[in-house]
Every structure is written in C-alpha cells, then in structure tokens.
C-alpha cells in the first residue's frame, strides 16, 4: 500500500547540549511505515542545529517566542499553513504548549491537527502542584515548597535537610547544599523562569524515566522505561538504556488511566535503594530521548501523528530491553547563505 503523504510541523530543533525533542521526533516520524512525511521545521533561533542538518527538514520557518503573545505565534503558524498546508503539528517545548493548547480548536478549524493534553491535565502536573498531584493520584512525591522570596528559605529549612533541589517552573534544576546556594540558585532561576521557584526535598536513589503516550481515554499507547547512564552537567542524558521494570510500567499505566492523559509525556522518577519510586517531575511532551523508544520498537512520534489524525491506534506493549542510546556532538559545516536566509527572510 502506498504511504499517505503528510506534512508535519515540528518545533524544538535545538539539538544542543540541552537538546530539544524536535530532531528525534522527526527521525521517528520519517521511519513511519504509513506516512511519507514532509517536514516543516519551526524555530525560534537562527542557530538551532536542526535548521542545518541534512535530511531532517524540507522547509524551515522562524516563529515568534510565545512570550510575544499567543496570538502572534498562532498567526505566524496560520501564515505558514497557508503556504505549506500543515497536517499535524507537534510542539516540543513546555513553554509553548500553553499557547498551542489554548488554540487547539482554532488550529484544527484551519486543518492543523495536534494531540495535546488538556489545560487541566497540563496544569495539575506543574512542578508547584506536584504535592497535590501525588496525593490525588496516589503517587509518592518528594516534599516541596514554593518560594516567592528568599525570605521563605528559613521556612524551607524547617521542613527539609540539605541538600535540596531548586527548580524553575519550566526548566532548570540545581542541587543546593546550603542557604547561600539556595539564594544564588533562587535568583538565577527566578530571573529566567519567574516565580515560584520550587524547592524539593532531595530523594537519594537512581534517576529513572519513562516515556509514554496516552490516548486521552485512559489507554497507554506506548511506554518505555529508561535509566540515564551518563548525565551531563546540565542534568541531561548523554547515554541511556531501556529497562525491564514492571513497577515503572504499572505506575505509568495507572497514571495515564487515572488522568486520561492525552499526548506524549515523560515521567521522571527516583528509585530509592529500598525499591520505592518517587515521582519528581512530569514533562507534558515527548522528551529528547524519544528515539531510544523508536529504536526499542515503539515509534511514539508515528503513533502520536496517527492519534492526532483520529486513527485507531492499538497499544504497543513490547519493546527491546537493554537497547541503548549514546549522544554525540558533531560540527556541521554551513554555507553563509543558509544562515543569511533564516536571519533575513525568516524562512528557508
């Protein structure tokens, strides 16, 4: 059967040492057995490596940051859509999700399909809501306190011993071992991501993650657990391996079933030496290590596209255990014309 032609728009082409999920999402989508994919790369910066990588995007368009306002962003997407006829859009940044969720219907009316969590689902898993989330859904979470000012540090010290994890609303997490470090990190994070700054109790153990896809009806369409084998100074996985951990799978299926999660997600967990699992974060989108899941047998980008188009997608229950990914860095040699085109024309 001939493959169905499809135009896919993707953000997050920043394949840096803090990589966005865009490029691996595209790699997965291009391996689809059902779609012949044409890729529209949507970028915020003119040096996002995905712009210059061969065989990744067919067209590139620069879009305005969501901080410029949702309308401006969506209008730009509509303008690109008039030219390129986007079938499916996969946003890959936490910070832009709100704008796309809010405008889901508007995008659909113009023919752009997305598959995103609802605003309620998105908001209840936010880092400053995690304690409530854990209580509501019966998951262990570390104790946390939301800081609006450094004056609250003493309140935090009454609750937790050092070290603690200091986190931004959207990104960034640092370990702090004393009051001075909490203060420094508080200022650094609040300047970048605003308030509150979240201080989380430090749970000792091994960090493990699950990538998953929920169909919005309570079914887990895909789930692959992974352990980071090499972590960069930014806390990002530079290598990872798929695990055979039924408890992690059960936890994932339970959360997706109870929350009826719609879309891609990543559960970040700490497994203690006693074998307990603490949920430390839920990322409401496909993570950057998605290509490991594709390599292990679950093509999550392909399944997400099908769900966005309203196809009936059966849960994938098998994956290869012990599959690894190892990232690498490489220098792309780029002609100035390409850089000039994206800088001046905002498209290539």
């Amino acid at each position: 059967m001939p493959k169905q032609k499809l135009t896919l728009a993707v953000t997050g082409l920043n394949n840096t040492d803090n990589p966005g999920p865009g490029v691996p999402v595209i790699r997965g989508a291009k391996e689809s057995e059902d779609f012949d994919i044409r890729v529209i790369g949507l970028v915020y910066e003119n040096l996002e490596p995905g712009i210059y990588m061969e065989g990744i995007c067919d067209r590139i368009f620069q879009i305005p940051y969501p901080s410029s306002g949702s309308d401006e962003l969506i209008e730009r997407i509509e303008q690109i859509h008039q030219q390129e006829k986007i079938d499916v859009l996969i946003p890959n940044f936490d910070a832009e999700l709100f704008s796309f969720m809010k405008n889901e219907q508007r995008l659909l009316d113009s023919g752009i399909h997305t598959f995103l969590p609802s605003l309620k689902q998105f908001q209840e898993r936010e880092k400053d809501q995690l304690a409530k989330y854990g209580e509501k859904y019966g998951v262990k979470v570390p104790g946390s306190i939301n800081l609006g000012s450094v004056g609250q540090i003493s309140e935090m010290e009454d609750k937790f011993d050092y070290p603690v994890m200091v986190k931004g609303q959207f990104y960034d997490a640092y370990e702090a071992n004393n009051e001075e470090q909490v203060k420094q990190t508080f200022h650094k994070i609040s300047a970048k991501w605003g308030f509150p700054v979240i201080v989380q109790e430090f749970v000792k153990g091994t960090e493990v993650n699950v990538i998953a896809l929920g169909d919005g009806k309570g079914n887990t369409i895909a789930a692959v657990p992974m352990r980071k084998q090499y972590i960069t100074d930014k806390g990002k996985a530079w290598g990872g391996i798929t695990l055979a951990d039924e408890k992690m799978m059960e936890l994932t299926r339970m959360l997706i079933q109870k929350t009826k999660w719609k879309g891609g997600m990543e559960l970040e967990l700490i497994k203690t030496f006693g074998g307990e699992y603490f949920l430390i974060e839920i990322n409401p989108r496909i993570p950057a290590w998605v290509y490991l899941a594709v390599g292990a047998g679950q093509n999550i980008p392909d399944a997400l596209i099908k769900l966005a188009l309203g196809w009936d997608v059966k849960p994938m229950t098998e994956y290869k255990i012990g599959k690894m990914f190892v990232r690498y860095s490489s220098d792309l040699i780029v002609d100035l014309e390409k850089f000039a085109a994206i800088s001046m024309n905002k498209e290539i």
Partner: protein
Amino acid sequence: MKITEEIKISDNGFVFNSKTGDSFNLNPFGLELIKQIAEDKDFESIRDVMLEKYDVDDLTIEKDFYEFYALLKYHQIIAPGDPLDFK
C-alpha cells in the same frame, strides 16, 4: 538462591541487570563463580569445582565466594537472603 531472571550473563563476562540498567565486567574466575551460582549449586559443589580448576586454597575460595555473594546481593543480581543460608 537463584540469579534473578532480569540478569543476562554473556560468555565474555559481561553481566547486565535489565531491571536496574547496571552492568558489570567479570574476570574469568568471577564468571565461573556466577555461572555455578546460576546453576543453583550449593557452596560445597562450587568450592570443589573451583579447587579443581584453579590453583587456590580452600580458605581463599570460601572468603572470595562470600564476598562475591554479598556483592551480587547488593547489586540485586540475586534476591536478598542470608549468605549463610546459601544451599
């Protein structure tokens, strides 16, 4: 006491725990030991095999065996239990 089912042992001495993601490199002596344990043999049988194959005394075998056993337990390669109860 058995090696847990998530453990994969390669003939070159590479051991992978698919539940935790940990991996280990064993020397030929360690590989021989873990293979004997995987066959669910008791300590006396393992000691006899090792004494026959390697130039080592009784006491060293016993000491090495229990140290190795404790390491296997620590890394969840075998289920927790008292090494002295080992059959």
